[in-house]
């Protein structure tokens, strides 16, 4: 019978779980060992930040928090593939990508600590990235809409969204990749497949052998990478982003990783997954993997590691203090950003709320 269409999904990995290089054709950036050391430092910073966040939550100083433990290679790899003028539309866990783009740990603490100012990113280039998007998958279409704006205005910019394995089940994800394929929009959808959508495992999200292949149906380039190997993530993402920038089409990049922590601090993953599975996942730890490789290249050692840990601790202490020292906004702040200019009725309600504050009622 004639074949109407045929496809295959490539799998990319440079470093195996033991930190051994499995391909000789390292990408250019990975031949520059200093670059990889910088990426490693951010992965470690991200982990120290995450540990600190959980400690803050456990001691009542932070609200519910979604940990990124185990995603460091995927997140930092994604963040480092974008150019400053590109736009990132994250879900709510991709701190490594965001820190790379200038989001400060204190911003993250502020957001999960119940203060909208956490979303008011101050630093370039994060300043023009989207805020955290809690409704699953919805950010994919914000990226697609951004990509459409770039295309209409003939700007050489790319929009990147991140989405979980669970999120890739949502209509918004399919809608985004579909329109990107139909209209050749400069969109890259990075699926962070961490195997678990709260308690629901990857295998019952989709019957597809890979999540990457969802992009085939949309007419996009697709690849699956070892999401715990930052060289693979950065290489695949950079290729995808630059292809989109050159007007050669969007991509779906599936980063296969593992959520080593709970879904959020309000979750207890022991309820739905076994200890062995998590122990096995720890053997693929992305941070340890890159460190082992850097050590094998004589680019890293214990002394440097200790110094980095101390620097990260100082940084986080400073960020935590900045967060804890920030006073809550005045009650008027709940009104002031509802519209550009507050309607008369809302101004009256604002006055009422202010009067309550002053004890006038």
């Amino acid at each position: 019978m004639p074949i109407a269409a045929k496809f295959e999904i490539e799998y990319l990995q440079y470093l195996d779980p033991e930190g051994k290089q499995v391909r000789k054709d390292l990408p250019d950036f990975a031949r520059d060992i200093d670059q990889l050391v910088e990426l490693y430092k951010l992965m470690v910073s991200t982990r120290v930040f995450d540990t600190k966040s959980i400690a803050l939550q456990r001691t009542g100083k932070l609200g519910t928090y979604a940990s990124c433990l185990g995603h460091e290679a995927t997140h930092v790899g994604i963040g480092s593939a974008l150019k400053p003028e590109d736009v990132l539309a994250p879900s709510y866990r991709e701190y490594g990508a965001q820190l790379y783009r200038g989001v400060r740990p204190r911003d993250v603490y502020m957001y999960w600590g119940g203060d909208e100012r956490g979303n008011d990113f101050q630093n370039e280039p994060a300043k023009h990235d989207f805020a955290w998007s809690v409704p699953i998958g919805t950010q994919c279409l914000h990226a697609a809409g951004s990509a459409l704006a770039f295309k209409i205005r003939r700007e050489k910019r790319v929009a990147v969204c991140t989405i979980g394995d669970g999120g890739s089940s949502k209509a918004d994800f399919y809608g985004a990749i579909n329109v990107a394929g139909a209209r050749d929009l400069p969109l890259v959808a990075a699926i962070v497949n961490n195997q678990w959508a709260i308690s629901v495992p990857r295998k019952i999200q989709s019957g597809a052998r890979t999540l990457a292949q969802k992009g085939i149906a949309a007419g996009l380039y697709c690849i699956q990478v070892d999401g715990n190997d930052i060289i693979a993530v950065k290489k695949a993402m950079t290729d995808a982003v630059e292809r989109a920038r050159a007007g050669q089409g969007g991509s779906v990049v599936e980063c296969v990783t593992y959520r080593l922590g709970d879904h959020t601090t309000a979750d207890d993953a022991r309820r739905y997954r076994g200890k062995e599975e998590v122990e096995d996942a720890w053997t693929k730890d992305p941070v340890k993997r890159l460190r082992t490789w850097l050590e094998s290249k004589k680019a890293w050692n214990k002394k440097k590691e200790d110094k980095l840990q101390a620097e990260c601790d100082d940084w986080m202490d400073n960020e935590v203090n900045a967060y804890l020292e920030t006073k809550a906004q005045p009650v008027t702040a709940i009104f002031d950003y509802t519209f550009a200019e507050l309607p008369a009725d809302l101004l009256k309600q604002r006055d009422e709320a202010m009067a309550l504050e002053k004890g006038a009622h």
Partner: protein
Amino acid sequence: MAAITLIEGVTQALAYEMKHDPSVVVLGEDVGVNGGVFRATQGLSDKFGEWRVFDTPLDETTIAGLTVGLAAQGMKPIAEAQFEGFIYPMMEQICCHAARMRNRTRGRITCPAVFRAPWGGGIHAPEHHSEANEHLFTNVPGLRVVLPSSPARAYGLLLAAIRDPDPVVFFEPKRIYRQYKEEVPDDGEALPLDVCFVLRDGTDITLVTWGAQVKECLEAADALAHEGISAEVIDVATLTPLDFDTIAESVQKTGRCVIVQEAPKTAGFGAEIAARIAEECIYDLLAPVARVSGWDVHTPLYRLEMKQLPSTARIVDAAKRTLAAG
């Protein structure tokens, strides 16, 4: 200057603003070559090209999400839901993102978008093509909900909606899309989004309405006039934020009010107006406030559709009963 219909007022506003502001884009299903199923975007694709008059894949979620993304990048997107009954997949993007973006980011990212949809019943259309669901949006903070009821107001209010720095849900009463023509100068003059329009002065009773029901209320006022009753007719036009002052002023003058809405009665927008009258004007009332509305039922298929829409006779009857009560 040619006289135009309400839907031509929509087209004229879109064309004017697209010509004068390159950041304005239109997107939706069939908005391009076909000019929209009601022809609201007729001719725009020829004038402004397929990227500014953008035919989307057939997915309302996609239309709404793209709109949020475009707006976040400084465009002024005007999304079309083909019918109000198909707006439900758009609601997550409208309510969770368009309406919240400014607040979420403390003003860093905004959403100056318009979500247009033909609205309401009375055109013998299939199921899901004849809903009155504006009240689902009037309870969402950060949104403006606008319903024009004449060619001039369609033109002026749509211009205002496009220029507004925040998201606007713009429902166009399709039953009166081509009801009559009037001269509407294409001068780019917007109408204010924070006022109700007093369409007819009166002293005995206030009829408050919006959308296609403006037609029935004006007819009812004529009928009442024949019986010596002077009815004031207010077109709310912008439901939220509500200009209650104009309604209050009228009710203080007449002491009587009938609220007319096409949507089901319970928790419709008329309930909000009635509550505001109770809160702020109750001592001005000579008789209880009355509501004439759709029943609390699904819009019937078209054989019985007109049983759901408030008729002129029901409005006249409610007005007379109100007058009889005090």
